[in-house]
Structures are given as structure tokens and as C-alpha cells.
């Protein structure tokens, strides 16, 4: 499946459903509906106030480790080919198991573990 086609499909589907929602979905707004939802009570205080930077830190760190997990998916799918010496199995000999795939991911995760250790020591994750 050539990558370009896959990207086109992705954009096509997302665009299709957002377009459907925008054009077909009923839009009926009333002032009550536009107010922020605060568990049923009148919203108090304004979100515009200044709040601690820790929120931003925690969000960014989550993003880093979330994407790390996301990268593991394609690796996991292709793990079998990565572990064979001749991936397309053309040669006469039965393919031996090679540590290429595993070592690759170990390196990738290792870097991020160092980052995690640094962040942990700097107490950027907790909320003290």
C-alpha cells in the first residue's frame, strides 16, 4: 500500500466525516448551550486567569511518552520480518533470528528512559 495512497485515504476519511457533521448535523445553539459545562452549576470565575505552569509541563511530558508508545505499534507489527536475517526470505538457508529489531527498539526506549530519569529527578511529573 504506497504511503501516499494511505495518507490520501486518511485525509479523505477524516475530511468526509467532518464535512458530513458540518453540513448534515443539526445546528441549534442557544446562549445556555454555549456556556462552559460546570457540572450543572452556573460557571464561576473565568478561565482566563493565570494558572501554574505545571499543567503545561505535565501535558508536554505526556505527549512525549504517548508518541513513544505510538511509535511502538508499527515496530510491533513488523517485528517478525525485522528479526529475520534476510527479511524477504529469498535465500536457501532458513532465516536465523537476528536481534536487529529488538536492539533498535531498545535503543529508542533507552534514550527516553534517560529522559524519564531526568524528569523524575527534577520532580516535573509530580505535583509537589
Amino acid at each position: 500500500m504506497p504511503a501516499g495512497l494511505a495518507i490520501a485515504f486518511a485525509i479523505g476519511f477524516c475530511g468526509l466525516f467532518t464535512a458530513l457533521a458540518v453540513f448534515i448535523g443539526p445546528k441549534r445553539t442557544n446562549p445556555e448551550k454555549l456556556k462552559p459545562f460546570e457540572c450543572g452549576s452556573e460557571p464561576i470565575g473565568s478561565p482566563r486567569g493565570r494558572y501554574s505552569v505545571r499543567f503545561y509541563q505535565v501535558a508536554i511530558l505526556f505527549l512525549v511518552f504517548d508518541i513513544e508508545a505510538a511509535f511502538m505499534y508499527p515496530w510491533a507489527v513488523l517485528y517478525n520480518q525485522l528479526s529475520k536475517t534476510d527479511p524477504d526470505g529469498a535465500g536457501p538457508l532458513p532465516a536465523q533470528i537476528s536481534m536487529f529489531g529488538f536492539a533498535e527498539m531498545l535503543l529508542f526506549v533507552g534514550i527516553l528512559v534517560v529522559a524519564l530519569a531526568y524528569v523524575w529527578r527534577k520532580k516535573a511529573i509530580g505535583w509537589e
Partner: protein
Amino acid sequence: MADAQSLRQLVLGRKDVQDLSDTEQDLPPDLMTVNMGPSHPAMHGTVRIVLTVDGEKVVKSDVQPGYLHRCFEKESEHATYTQIFPYTDRLNYVSPMINNVGWAMVAEKLMSIGKDIPKRAEYIRVIVSEMSRITDHLTCVGASAMELGAFGPFLFFLKCREWLYELLEIVSGARLTHTYVRVGGVSKDLPAGFDERLTHTLDEIEKVMVEVEGLLNNNKIFRDRMAGIGAMTREEAIATGCVGPIARACGVDYDVRKDYPYSIYPEVEFDVPVGTTGDCLDRYLVRLEEMRQSIRILRQCLKQIPDGPVMIDDPRCALPPKVDTYNTIESMIRHFKHIVDGIKVPAGETYAFVEGGNGELGFFVVADGTGRPYKAYCRSPSFVHLSTASQLIHGHLIADIVPIFGMINMIGGECDK
């Protein structure tokens, strides 16, 4: 020169170099007020907290109950003593039987017939109360585990609760709102084959409890979210009037069944679990242990239950047997007067209390001799525990409010009466 300076400041929006002290003081973030409103899953739908938070840490909280105030007192001034039983069911609707027994006891205390209730009726009352107490703890622990993300134990405990609901439905006819106890005894006898089914269910529940304890007790996430959260000292617990599992978790050894024994609790042995630190984890462990003690009581009751009538035959508060009602005019009139005008409770006032699911549940009744109470105040443990909530929350993170509220087990009907 001056306007160039201000121009640069205007453009860059930066302070002048001289204004900066050597280190840029980090301005304290403004406190944000947030609504943890009435319609929130962790608030059991009936409590609103106006939180003032500094980032995630709670700085000030104003707990507002009253969203489920259904006027128990006003309704009970317009209903006869027997008609109030359905209202008491819906006070602590997680363990409704115990409220029924509490209300029956206050009426019996006023009529001073507490001593001559038939022994079998007392045993049945203790059996159904302890079953109701188990469902209370099952719901409380299951729901607060789910609120912390452990969905498995919630479903396991609800499966057990379904078994108990079926049994309570066979006994009283309703799954949740039983209205089973009457002044002077209970309305119906236990059905045949009840004790085999109950013993079987109790064994099953103990198996499930072992499973859930395996899941939760040493679970790192569960312990981190519960240990050390919402701790309360012994003196605070007593001074704020806390009772039940919450006070026992702080080390207050107060259980109405032991300190002011009523009904046949002196005839069964059971222990009262008492915690040490008084935090959420201790409340959870105390509730689990209390479930085991209730199972132990149930087993003893099933062995010791005598035969005999289940209703006192005192004409003042017992309905005449059906065969007389349809055959003799006196019984018909008595039956009619009993239902329409209610039980004539002599004038006086008293406060009777039982060990409810959340602690000392008492009724302060002023009777004026007619069939309707003049005043029926319900002393509800949830209302007292909720008054300590804002002090327990103080200084914790917003996410810690959920386990604290889960373990306080604040029941809307009982808290707002």
C-alpha cells in the same frame, strides 16, 4: 529618548532592564474557583463543592449539600407511624433495612414494649440488617474502587449485591425499598429454604471478597491513591461527631451494637475492627473487615434462630389475624382504626439509635398520643461526615477528592434527609 524607551517597551512588551530584580520573581498564579457541582459522578449527584484551587491543590472548599432534601421530617408529620417506614427506606437507600429497624425501635421505645418483642422477630431483624449492611459496604467499596479506575471489583461486588438483593426480595418483596419491619416485629416470616440459600450466598460472597482483596489490597495504584489521603485524628473524629467506619478507622472504638447493645446483639459474638491512621485506606480495610464480621453474625443467627411468632400480639400495635378481621366486627374495626388512624403512641419524646451502614443512625421522635408523630428528626451519620469533608479535602489535590468522597460514603437521601 523617553518615548523611544517607551516605544521599545510598547513593542517588545518587556519591562525595562532596571525593573528586573536579579531573579525574576515568579508571580503567584491566581487562585481559580471551580465548581465540582451537583451533577458529578464522584459527588453521588447531590453535593456541590465550590473549590478554590491553586493549580491542582485545594486551597478552600465550600461544600453545599441539600440537593436531595426531600423533607423527611415534614412528610413524617403528615403520615402515621406505619406509613413512615417507606420514607425511612429511602433515607440510607444503600442499607434500607437498618433504617426500618431504627424507626421501629424508636416507636417501640416510646410505647415501652421493647422488651416483649418475640425473639424470632428480633433475630429476623438482625439477619436482614446485617444483610443490608453487607450490601452497603459492597456498594461503597465497589463504587469507590470504580471511581479510582478499578472496574473489575465494582462488577464483582455488584454481582454479590445482586445475590443479596434477590434474597432480600424473597424476604420482603422488594429489591431495595423493603418496608419490611413493623412496630412490634416484622411483617412476614422468613420464607422456607431461606437459610440454605443465605449460607450458600455467604460462602460465594466470601470467595469474591478474597478475589477483590487480592486485586486491591496490595495494588500500587490503589494504595497510592488511598493511603495517607483524607486522614483524620481520633480527637477530630469525636469532636465532629463522626461515627461508624470513619470513626473506627481513626481508632475510636465506638459501635452502637457493642456500646449500647440493642436487640439480640449481646447473644452473637463479633468483633469491631478499629483502624489506626484514619485515612481512606483504613476506612476501606475497616469496611471489608466489617463485612466479614457481618457474615459471621449471619451464620450464628441462622443457627440460633428460634421458632415462634414474628409479631408481638399486643393489640395496640399489631394487626389482628386475618381470619378474625373477616369474621368478627371488633377485629374489623380494630384493623380499620389501626390502618387509618395509626398506632396510638403515648405522648413523650425519646432518641433511639442503631448501628447503621455509616454509623449511629438515630431517630428523635416527639409523640403526642395520636397516630402521627409530632416531630421525627433523623440523626443521619452522612450529614455529620459531610461536614468534615471540607476539612479533609483541604491541602489535597483535586483528584484526591474522589477517594475521600468515596470512602465517606455520603448517601444523598440520608445526608439531606
